[in-house]
């Protein structure tokens, strides 16, 4: 441990832990639901066909699991990645890997369907440092809460990002 690389976690980064980031508006639209479902290879027609979805009791085309809408793009604004992608700090590592993702759905609060507008608020849960086979790494865990247009929390996401 005496040989451990110096920490890359700054006071500035520590101050961000647990603080809600700016809300991000996500639009759930039919075409994007279909495209996401097609990219995965889903075969259930509730992700493609409005009539099929309605016949099963849904308001419109259902958002496939893992799809919670497309961020509204503003030209000139900071590059927008997935909710909560790096903001306000930099680390001396060049490479980034997605460490893992977990989605939790609260369908009793509303099944996410085309036509919904979702507000995503993301916060950093923790920064951790470790020495892996790829060298020193920074592991950032984020949690994002997704709230629909009726103010109901419909999903949560926990994601891990590895920088090395």
């Amino acid at each position, binding site marked *: 441990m005496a040989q451990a690389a110096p920490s890359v976690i700054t006071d500035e980064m520590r101050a961000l832990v647990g603080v809600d980031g700016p809300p991000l508006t996500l639009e759930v639209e039919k075409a994007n639901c279909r*495209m*996401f479902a097609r990219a995965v*290879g889903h075969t*259930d027609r509730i992700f493609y066909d409005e009539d099929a979805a309605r016949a099963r009791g849904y308001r419109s085309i259902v958002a*496939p699991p893992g799809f919670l809408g497309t961020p509204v793009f503003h030209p000139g604004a900071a590059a927008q990645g997935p909710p909560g992608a790096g903001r306000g700090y930099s680390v001396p590592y060049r490479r980034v890997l*997605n460490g893992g993702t977990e989605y939790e*759905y609260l369908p009793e609060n509303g099944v996410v369907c085309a036509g919904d507008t979702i507000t995503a608020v993301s916060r950093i849960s923790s920064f951790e440092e470790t020495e892996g086979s790829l060298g020193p790494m920074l592991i950032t865990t984020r949690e994002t809460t997704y709230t629909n247009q009726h103010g109901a929390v419909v999903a949560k996401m926990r994601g891990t990002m590895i920088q090395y």
Partner: protein
Amino acid sequence: MTHQVFFEDVHEGDEIPQLRKNCSTQQLVLWAAASGDFYQIHYDKDFAQATGLKGLIVHGALKNAFLAQLLHDWIGEGGQVRRFGCSYRGMDEPGQDILCRGVVTKTYTRDGKHYVDLDVWTERPDGKRTSPGTATVTLPGRG
């Protein structure tokens, strides 16, 4: 989609029907557009190799979405996916089989809802589990 699995038919240790995937580079580009993840290691071979990778790799989040499909297709119209997720522990390449699998770890009823917990993962042809994770679904009862 017509077959419905019921809670009473599911037991700890049961393996659910497998889902086999094999990504073309075209599918990775489609996923990049659908997910908004445009990191070049998934579609620009020169870029991927410059970062030290052997070649293009499949997006971790796409494998997670495959696991969600595995669950969605199993639970039928009467079930709901409540939670799913995995860690990205190993890389998968385009053009190589990705086998999605799940095994039931626990079944329980709470507040009238029938829950099933599972271990889920993606597996390479060499048997390595590249995306181990867990999930929870609800299933209808025969009631």
